[in-house]
């Protein structure tokens, strides 16, 4: 472990002592396990915490869902087992914290309701805002820890000049998770460590190996953690059935931008902006979903060129480098995890709203997603696309 890089615990902030217990949010994956190993090797007082968010057996056996949960999704028994084994290897106290009800209320239900309203949600951001950096941090502080550390790829530094905590893109841009973290408050950032922010994934795996963690080669998880198999439409149907709710009838018409009907669709929750497959209509040229209108249930389709938009508004902003957005600001904006930040102007719009105007039109601005604004490698803030 001698070669393990330091975690970069900020030293400068007067009311943030270097000492104190650190609670590591352990998912059972390589990243968070390595964080625990790194902090332990530096001699920090470490506690492992795993959030139990969803019972993977809940919808097991229903159509489209595996009978038995597979590893590699949050809260599967295998993942808890892996996290516990890491804690045992590192000889740190380890606890599983039950947050299933809160997860269902703050993440799963909004996820379902967003799709039913024609939006495309990002459950990971909701989970970060409501569970990981809210409830978990609170629990950690309640049990005597000063801060939490997570396995996210992001950097987090205090800037005395601005008197603000600054969230930055990580060294490994391919793993950049800042798009999911824009909702962090100053208080949350002040009590959070991202020890992997200056490492690449291969380096992290190497540290895991050097730390004798048995899961050093465990594959990354990609899917939405509570939807094993990845079929979100089936999940929504199964979840509503479990809740004794009917899948609301949101069937309607597929229409062109001129309003001409092209055919019938089974429900607006089956569509995402930019979607090409599964539209159920044939056309000489490829058609894409351009707009989903929950009120009329119309799904507008058209050529790819019409997917591009210059400007859009978003709401419920959270600001990181600035206290608030009071004047137009030059940023690079990012409207999906996989998109590179693109030059744009942002300006205040209505109550807590933000008008975003790209220099070059961007593909598939998706309501329910977030727009995150960057200034070079700093996260200025972000907001939810309307």
């Amino acid at each position, binding site marked *: 472990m001698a070669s393990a890089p330091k975690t970069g615990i900020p030293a400068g902030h007067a009311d943030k002592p270097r000492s104190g217990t650190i609670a590591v949010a352990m998912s059972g994956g390589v990243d968070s396990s390595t964080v625990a190993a790194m902090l332990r090797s530096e001699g920090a007082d470490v*506690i492992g915490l*795993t959030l*139990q968010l969803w019972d993977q057996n809940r919808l097991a056996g229903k159509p489209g869902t595996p009978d038995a949960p597979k590893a590699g999704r949050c*809260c599967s*028994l295998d993942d*808890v087992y892996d996290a*516990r084994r890491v804690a045992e290897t590192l000889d740190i*106290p380890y*606890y*599983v*914290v*039950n*947050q*299933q*009800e*809160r997860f269902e*209320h*703050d993440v799963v239900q909004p996820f379902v309701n967003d799709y039913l309203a024609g939006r495309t949600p990002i459950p990971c951001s909701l989970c970060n805002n409501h569970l990981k950096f809210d*409830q978990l941090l*609170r*629990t950690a*502080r*309640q*049990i*005597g820890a000063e801060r939490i550390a997570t396995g996210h790829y992001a950097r987090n530094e205090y800037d005395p000049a601005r008197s603000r905590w600054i969230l930055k893109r990580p060294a490994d841009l391919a793993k950049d998770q800042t798009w999911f973290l824009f909702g962090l408050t100053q208080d949350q950032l002040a009590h959070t460590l991202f020890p992997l922010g200056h490492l690449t994934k291969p380096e992290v795996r190497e540290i895991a190996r050097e730390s004798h963690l048995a899961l050093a080669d465990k594959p990354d998880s990609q899917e939405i953690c509570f939807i094993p198999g990845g079929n979100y439409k089936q999940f929504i149907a199964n979840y509503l059935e479990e809740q004794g709710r009917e899948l609301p009838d949101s069937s309607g018409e597929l229409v062109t931008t001129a309003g001409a009907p092209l055919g019938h669709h089974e429900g607006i929750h089956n569509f995402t902006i930019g979607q090409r497959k599964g539209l159920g209509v044939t056309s000489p040229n490829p058609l894409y979903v351009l707009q989903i209108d929950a009120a009329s249930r119309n799904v507008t389709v058209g050529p790819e060129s019409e997917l591009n938009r210059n400007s859009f508004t978003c709401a419920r902003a959270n600001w990181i480098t600035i206290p608030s957005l009071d004047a137009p600001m030059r940023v690079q904006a990012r409207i999906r995890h996989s998109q590179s930040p693109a030059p744009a102007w942002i300006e205040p719009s209505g109550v807590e709203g933000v008008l975003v105007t790209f220099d070059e039109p961007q593909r598939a601005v998706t309501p329910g997603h977030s727009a995150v604004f960057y200034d070079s490698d700093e996260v200025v803030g972000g907001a939810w696309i309307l």
Partner: protein
Amino acid sequence: MRRVYMDANATTPLLPEVVEAMRPYWIEHFGNASSIHQQGQRARTAVDQARETLAEFFGCHAAEVVFTSGGTEGDNTALFGLLHPGDHLITTSIEHSAVLAAADRLAHDGIATTKVDPRPDGLIDPMDILRAIRPETRLISVMLANNETGVVQPVEEIGRIAAQTGAFFHIDAVQGAGKVLIDVNRIGCHVLTISGHKMYAPKGIGAMYVRKGTPLDPLMVGGSHERRRRAGTENVPAIVALGKAAELAMHGLESGVMHRLATLRDRLENGILAQIPGTGVNGAGTPRAANTSNIWFDQLEGEALVIALDLKGLAVSGGSACHSGATEPSHVLMAMGLDKTRARASLRFSLLKTATDADIDYALEVIPAAVDRLRELAPELAGTAG
């Protein structure tokens, strides 16, 4: 750091006398109690002696004692061994899952179960048992002392109801054994289950009283061990240990150990109630096992308090651990009518019979401080954590 263990209802350590008693039976007297030779005879003698001690402990004949692997096996044997399709079972909603899950499985075989709810103080009203009787009621299964609240149930009155109606009567005495004097003839039960590790004997050993002539089908079949009531080579060292633990338990009950424990328990309870506002006792005003106290704390989550106290060296429990290790609200407290928030905010303190005044002092030192910190950092509890 000082560590104080107040989770005796989860498990107990072995008493030194118990370890000494079983020690020769690992290497020196290792024989199979069924063998003809002298090694076998030596083992047989040890098992017979332990059986006689257990007979004294139950107040029955030695031939009515059956050694098992523990409480779950005993509870399962009582239900699976006495009930047949078409029969009706009466039990309570505050039983251990070894009874409740067995009843759930029996439902698939056409065996109906009535689960009687307790009164708000945790006591089962015998009249509710009587009201649940049907012509096809074959078995009544009730626990002696509740594992979470310590409430001691009126089993003798229920025994009279069983006798009047001709039903078999099973007592889950896992939590009562060693804390409450057991006399199977006074109780009027046909089957009674105990577990070694709740009474200072090892895990993996238990015993049942089975009244002579009771048509109890064995769960395990094979050899003719235990008068064909339980096949499998006798676990001789553990049986010897259980015999010694039962002997010590009887001696302790005679010499007032429980009176001493009740004094300590009351000091702990009164100290918490006096020092911490927004607290109360679950099961107050009932006859309770002398070592057990279940206390609710307003405006906090019990799970976090359990962790905080553990990190301060005090081992207690709250709710019941689910498969991952996360805590679920106690089904016992919910059955008593507590709302979910209060059930989640309840902790069980269960003293070892070796508990000291210094242990109570330590608990009264760390609990108020931990509660203060939790409440200080608690969200407005009207939130979503429910």
